[in-house]
């Protein structure tokens, strides 16, 4: 026996409200161990507790009773004498009236009532006393959550464990249940409450008993919770999931048929909701409750139920085409959850009372008419999606009906099957489609057989309807189909594709079906069928390329051809052969005569090559032969023709040919590329572009050559333009290792062409300087030029003279001398366009250099800056009243192109100088350039005092920052932001700059959003806000206004003290934006206004 001192300290520790929860738990455990090991008897403990249990201090009393309750919970498995249990339960029952110390009594009662029979249980009389005390004293809804939960657990336990004790209480019990669960909102308590209703309802099944009179009240309380809707975002927080709760409510609903008069109307009412989850829940509950309520009770709702099921399944079926069914002709549906649940309900109802429901289904006029309408010949492809969904639903409906029993199956069969068979025969005649018909007959006879033999009866009706649909869904089911039949099907499909091209949807399906068949054959290595496929489909399609038959649009033809080709390598090769032939046949015609149809055809074929065929070969590991052949064919054709007519289509053709050439060349190996480039050079050197081909080129062109070039370029013939464009395309796509012959001549030629404004030549020059080997020792033995030499040749050319009279050259020679000569500037006004072309060309060359990180870029940048500065700094172009007004017209475009050159330098281009075209790309080249050019730009901006120069410098600045990665600039955001704002205010002066403004404001918004930019933003908050307010009303471009307002909205997140002074100003500006003509701006304005208004208060008064 333990000494009193041992356990008294535990008791005191527990009762003492100042001890921590862990101490209290430890004391309970210690006492429980003592009791369990019989070191302490319960009697002794109770005697010791005496004062704690009865004191008038309610806090101590409640602790005392709670201790008793906790101990009883721990001793659930310890045998106790009946007398002890009786006296304990008696005491605790009494304490239920003591609301101040309720929890202990609840815990204790619960522990005693839950005891197992072999360790001594509470008698029924005592349980009844507990129940009575419960009903008399407990006001469940006025308690806290945990106490409510305990009360519900107690009630649940009483109902489950002591049904005989609670049964006599009848009405009072239900009154107390209603009172207890009404308005309950806690999910954990609700689960218990639902379960209590369920148990209670099962306890009193008598339709005239006490439950019956309370059923309406109880259901009113329960019904409010349907459908269960959780506002808690996470169910983990509350320990109960929505599904558990819903399940408990479902069980309560279904607990007794007495709920039927209330539940069914409620559930039917909720079906009218358009919320899918509510519908799903309603069907689920209906499906579960229907069998529980029994067929008699459900019979009177039959009509309403059928109409709601029909509504969901037939009137507005919400099934989605399943992903794979797209290719099968679009007849496999994935049913929505609602439909699944509705079908389950229907199934349940059919099993319960099949006659009634079947009468309704079979007698339903809509369904009958619908089926009849499909017994006429029809074409699946012309059927709108909704009709097909309905067809699918009706099929499911009949299948479910037929499934329920033999009798119902027979009825469905009798009603519809003869009609269907007849219709199938009918469709054979009118469809003039033997292969489909055979297929269908086979299917129907199989269904027939199944129906007769009585096996798998359930599926026949469903499949019977489906049989009609199977017209389009066949590829996979072809395994047993004979070759002849296969041929017929292919022929049929091909003819359908040939004639049906005006019906876009069905055409696509037919083509997909063919592609599926092709893939299927390829996948299963069926050589016979593959041969048939190639013969019937591929060859047929290939023959279309160059013939006028069939009369379908060319783009569709090409689509059909490419897609069938992609089914396999052999098919693709056939198609490539066909396309090569077509190009050979038509190219000359297209290119020499400009024959409209040939041009169109060749363009399409070439596009097809570059967009589909070549990538396909690359993906599927085909040889480079295809690419090589294409390039070779084009060069042959060019070589063999002598003159070209220049038309608009011809330019399109040239574009397509260039793209195809680039795509083809870039996929070739180094050797093939060298072959192509040599072949191309031969054509080039034979052209009229090379009168000088034998004359030696000096390292620098003389001034007379300058004039010669300008004159010469003007006269470049169309054929020459073709040749040089295609040659440029080849050069752009070369690998760095590929050797280019006669590089010097090529360079001169490109320089000449770019002064004419020929961009591809400029791009080719850029690619060349990008890829040429940089040092002599790395160089191929055969390579006559390295990048240094190439740059020498390029930069010494006289075309740059206009800007700096060869400072460019001096810069590179004397290490960046900054002197600016202006001797030849604007020597002749008619040269402006040539100069602009030269600047653009120089920009592309610079891009090539910048990407490989070559030093030469410095000179080029200086050239651009020189153009920007020189026109004004020497007073040639004062701010106003220039006597030579014409000059402004000349100078501004020139300066603009110099500013835009920075855009070319830094932006990514799709046409050349990217990874696809094997460019040499040095990591972080943009960052490096940014760091080197920014100081130059800034100092120039500070020095210049002409408005135009400043705006042009800011334009360059804007190009640089918008193309440089944000991470490179953000560390200097502090310096950058004032500049940004300056540039914005300068650029807004002229409409010409609107695109650039947009780019700048995007950079600004990126800085606003970036964590690292926050400090800088904060320091310049006022200035930024002022600038943004101005831009919010920028009249020339909507996106600028929109972005400005978005940025303003983001500014509202800054610390209150910083931005509060601007609040009124911003709100006034934004309320003007509320009236903006563009909706997107208005919407942003509403958001922004809300954000700014709420930084002070919710009210918008200001």
């Amino acid at each position, binding site marked *: 026996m333990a000494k009193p001192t041992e356990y008294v300290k535990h008791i005191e520790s527990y009762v003492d409200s100042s001890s921590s929860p862990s101490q209290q738990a430890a004391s309970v455990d210690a006492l429980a161990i003592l009791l369990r090991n019989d070191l302490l008897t319960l009697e002794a403990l109770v005697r010791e507790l005496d004062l704690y249990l009865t004191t008038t201090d309610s806090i101590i009393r409640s602790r005392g009773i709670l201790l008793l309750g906790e101990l009883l919970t721990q001793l659930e498995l310890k045998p106790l004498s009946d007398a002890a249990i009786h006296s304990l339960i008696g005491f605790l029952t009494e304490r239920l009236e003591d609301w101040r110390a309720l929890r202990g009594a609840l815990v204790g009662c619960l522990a005693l009532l839950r005891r197992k029979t072999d360790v001594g249980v509470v008698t029924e009389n005592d349980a009844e006393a507990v129940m009575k005390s419960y009903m008399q004293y407990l006001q469940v809804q006025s308690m806290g959550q945990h106490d409510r939960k305990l009360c519900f657990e107690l009630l649940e336990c009483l109902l489950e464990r002591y049904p005989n004790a609670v049964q006599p209480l009848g009405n009072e019990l239900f009154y107390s249940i209603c009172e207890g669960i009404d308005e309950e909102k806690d999910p954990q308590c609700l689960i218990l409450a639902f379960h209590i209703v369920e148990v209670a309802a099962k306890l009193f099944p008598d339709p005239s008993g006490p439950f019956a009179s309370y059923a309406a009240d109880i259901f009113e309380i329960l019904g409010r919770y349907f459908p269960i809707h959780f506002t808690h975002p996470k169910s983990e927080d509350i320990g109960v999931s929505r599904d558990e709760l819903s399940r408990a409510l479902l069980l309560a609903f279904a607990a007794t048929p007495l709920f039927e008069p209330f539940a069914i109307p409620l559930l039917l009412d909720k079906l*009218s909701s358009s919320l899918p989850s509510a519908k799903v829940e309603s069907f689920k509950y209906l499906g579960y409750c229907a069998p529980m309520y029994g067929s008699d009770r459900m019979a009177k709702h039959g009509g309403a139920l059928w109409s709601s099921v029909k509504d969901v399944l037939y009137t507005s079926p919400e099934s989605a085409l399943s992903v794979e069914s797209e290719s099968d002709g679009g007849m496999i549906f994935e049913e929505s959850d609602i439909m699944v649940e509705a079908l389950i309900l229907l199934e349940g109802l059919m099993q319960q009372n099949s006659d009634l429901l079947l009468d309704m289904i079979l007698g339903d006029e809509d369904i009958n008419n619908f089926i009849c309408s499909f017994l006429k010949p029809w074409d699946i492809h012309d059927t709108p999606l909704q009709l097909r969904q309905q067809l699918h639903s009706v099929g499911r409906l009949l299948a479910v009906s037929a499934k329920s029993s033999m009798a119902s199956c027979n009825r469905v069969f009798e009603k519809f099957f003869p009609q269907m068979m007849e219709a199938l025969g009918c469709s054979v005649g009118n469809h003039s489609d033997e292969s489909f018909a055979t297929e269908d007959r086979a299917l129907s006879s199989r269904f027939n057989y199944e129906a007769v033999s009585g096996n798998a009866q359930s599926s026949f009706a469903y499949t019977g309807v489906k049989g009609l649909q199977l017209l389009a869904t066949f590829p996979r089911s072809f395994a047993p189909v004979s070759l002849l039949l296969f041929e017929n099907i292919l022929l049929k499909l091909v003819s359908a594709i040939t004639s049906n091209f005006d019906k876009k949807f069905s055409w696509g399906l037919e083509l997909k079906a063919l592609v599926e068949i092709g893939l299927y054959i390829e996948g299963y290595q069926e050589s016979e069928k593959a041969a048939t496929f190639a013969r019937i489909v591929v060859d047929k399609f290939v023959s279309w390329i160059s013939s006028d038959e069939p009369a379908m649009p060319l783009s569709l033809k090409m689509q059909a051809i490419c897609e069938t080709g992609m089914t396999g390598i052999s098919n693709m090769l056939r198609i490539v052969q066909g396309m090569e032939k077509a190009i050979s046949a038509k190219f000359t015609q297209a290119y020499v005569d400009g024959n409209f149809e040939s041009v169109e055809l060749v363009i399409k074929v070439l596009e097809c090559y570059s967009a589909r065929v070549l990538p396909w070969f690359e993906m599927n590991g085909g040889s480079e032969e295809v690419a090589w052949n294409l390039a070779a064919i084009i060069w042959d054709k060019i070589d063999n023709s002598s003159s070209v007519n220049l038309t608009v289509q011809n330019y399109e053709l040239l574009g397509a040919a260039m793209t195809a050439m680039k795509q083809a060349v870039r996929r070739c190996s180094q050797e093939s590329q060298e072959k192509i480039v040599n072949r191309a050079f031969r054509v080039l050197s034979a052209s009229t572009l090379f009168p000088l081909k034998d004359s030696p080129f000096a390292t620098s062109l003389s001034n007379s050559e300058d004039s010669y070039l300008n004159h010469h370029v003007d006269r470049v013939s169309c054929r020459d333009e073709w040749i040089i464009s295609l040659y440029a395309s080849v050069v752009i796509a070369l690998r760095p290792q590929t050797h280019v012959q006669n590089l010097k001549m090529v360079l001169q030629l490109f320089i000449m062409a770019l002064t004419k404004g020929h961009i591809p030549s400029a791009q080719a020059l850029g690619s060349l300087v990008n890829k040429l080997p940089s040092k002599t020792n790395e160089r191929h033995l055969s390579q006559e030029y390295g990048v240094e030499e190439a740059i020498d040749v390029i930069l010494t050319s006289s075309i740059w003279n206009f800007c700096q009279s060869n400072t460019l050259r001096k810069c590179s020679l004397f290490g960046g001398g900054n002197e600016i000569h202006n001797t030849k500037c604007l020597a002749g006004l008619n040269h402006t366009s040539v100069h602009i072309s030269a600047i653009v060309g120089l920009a592309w060359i610079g891009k090539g250099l910048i990407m490989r990180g070559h030093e030469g870029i410095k000179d080029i940048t200086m050239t651009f800056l020189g153009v920007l500065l020189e026109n004004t700094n020497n007073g040639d172009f004062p701010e106003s009243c220039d006597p030579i007004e014409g000059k402004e017209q000349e100078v501004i475009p020139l300066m603009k192109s110099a500013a835009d050159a920075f855009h070319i330098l830094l932006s990514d281009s799709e046409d050349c100088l990217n990874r696809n075209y094997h460019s040499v790309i040095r990591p972080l080249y943009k960052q490096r350039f940014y760091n080197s050019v920014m100081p130059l730009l800034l100092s120039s901006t500070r020095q210049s005092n002409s408005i135009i120069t400043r705006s042009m410098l800011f334009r360059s600045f804007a190009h640089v920052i918008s193309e440089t990665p944000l991470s490179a600039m953000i560390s200097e955001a502090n310096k950058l932001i004032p500049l940004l704002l300056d540039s914005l205010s300068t650029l807004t002066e002229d409409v010409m700059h609107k695109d650039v403004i947009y780019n700048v404001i995007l950079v600004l918004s990126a800085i606003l959003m970036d964590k690292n930019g926050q400090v800088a933003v904060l320091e310049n908050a006022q200035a930024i806000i002022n600038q943004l307010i101005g831009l919010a009303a920028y009249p020339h471009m909507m996106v600028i206004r929109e972005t400005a307002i978005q940025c303003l909205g983001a500014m509202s997140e800054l610390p209150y003290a910083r931005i509060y002074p601007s609040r009124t100003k911003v709100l006034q500006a934004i309320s003007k934006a509320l009236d903006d*003509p563009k*909706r997107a701006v208005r919407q942003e304005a509403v958001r922004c206004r*809300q954000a700014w208004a709420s930084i002070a208060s919710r009210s*918008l008064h200001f």
Partner: protein
Amino acid sequence: MTLGLINANPVVHAKKKRVARPLDDPHADDAVDPLEIYDYVRDIRDPEHPYSLEQLSVLSEESITVDEKLGRILITFTPTIQHCSMATVIGLCLREKLKDCFPAHFKVDIKVAPGSHADEEAVNKQLNDKERVAAALENPNLRQLVTECLYSSEL
């Protein structure tokens, strides 16, 4: 049993999908249309339930008319039940929201749908009387309720 909610279990409808507007002529002006107004008001929370007015079918796009030339907006809403004492609160919310979202020159009329409310005339009168609206919004309780409905994040 207890006097709690006015409509304890309203029928809830699905939110309609927000359809992105087709990109119209970038140079033309976008007139204010019912859909734009609806987009602003559809997510106002019901004063009684954690559902939006759209979910409870109190509002629909069709119930809004707008005349941009005259600068008039008319919204007709349908309370969930005839005796809904929340109708005026809903109306106040609508008025507040539109005041925030449109420039001041629009005149906003708010009405309950004919036949949908027992005190139709009284409610209409109350909602379109600016003195009464101003007075109502000075009542701190009402103000708070309106603010909660407008800016609730419960939805």
